[in-house]
């Protein structure tokens, strides 16, 4: 089973993503609500896939992306953010994110993206 970690400062969004993923048969192995905690939990649970928010207090998702890719270069990161600007999407993809989902999204859209990334 694909093991997913969710990083988002909003508990509401983590709950929404977790429900969508668990309903689709993914295992959610860890959650974090800020960048520092994300790194700790990431090392602890060693996920296959990470969903990562961008606008978070203290450390942005882009900084977290760089750090977790240093720790595990083959982890598959999907950015899930309200920020849909083209240059931000390009920057995240250039840094190594596998896909970018703009909030608000339909749960099935996110699940389809994660399935595709998991199989890639």
């Amino acid at each position: 089973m694909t093991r997913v970690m969710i990083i988002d400062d909003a508990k509401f969004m983590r709950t929404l993503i977790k429900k969508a993923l668990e309903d689709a048969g993914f295992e959610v192995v860890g959650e974090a609500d800020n960048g520092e905690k994300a790194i700790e939990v990431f090392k602890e649970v060693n996920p296959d896939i990470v969903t990562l928010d961008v606008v978070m207090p203290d450390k942005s998702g882009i900084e977290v992306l760089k750090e977790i890719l240093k720790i595990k270069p083959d982890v598959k990161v999907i950015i899930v953010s309200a920020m849909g600007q083209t240059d931000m999407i390009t920057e995240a993809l250039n840094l190594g994110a596998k896909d970018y989902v703009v909030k608000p999204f339909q749960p099935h859209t996110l699940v389809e993206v994660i399935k595709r990334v998991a199989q890639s």
Partner: protein
Amino acid sequence: MIISDDQLDAIRETINISAGQSATALSELLGCRVNMEVPEIRFVEINKLGEVLSEETKSFLSFFSNFEKNFSGNIVVAYEENQKEKLVSIVINRYGISVDEENILEEVSNIVFGAFVGGLSNFIGLNITFSPPKKVKVLEELGNISDSVIILGEVLLLPEVNGKIKAKILIIPTRESVSLLLDKLRGLLG
């Protein structure tokens, strides 16, 4: 009205998602990256609203609209007073238009509000519109609010044009609309 921490978190995320659409629209309009900070949510006594808004928009030029249809309250966008010329000149140079500053900022506000309201509508599944933006002359213009305590959501947009320009979005929903929003958000979690 008692609002739990989880409900506040959900309201904050709703404002984050909606303001993210505003940041994207503003970015397209100005042709630059627009960063955003995590929204802040506060409870404000209605008799303190004028005072709080005055403080929040001190040295800012503000425009407001009323939410319409299935949502009520106000949305305000405030541009840093000493930077607003920069914003206006970008629009003038980028689009080759020559209209006065207030008209340009009204249109920028229209784009910011339209994207915010579109994001909000799509997220919670409600048809919401807004009135044409108007410059705030006196804070009492922000009527339409009859609650004794209101929620004020605030988010900072930071266009990166020769340094950063500050633009704040303030959301002042009525109590009725907060209840409706919370019902819709509960529905999203199934």
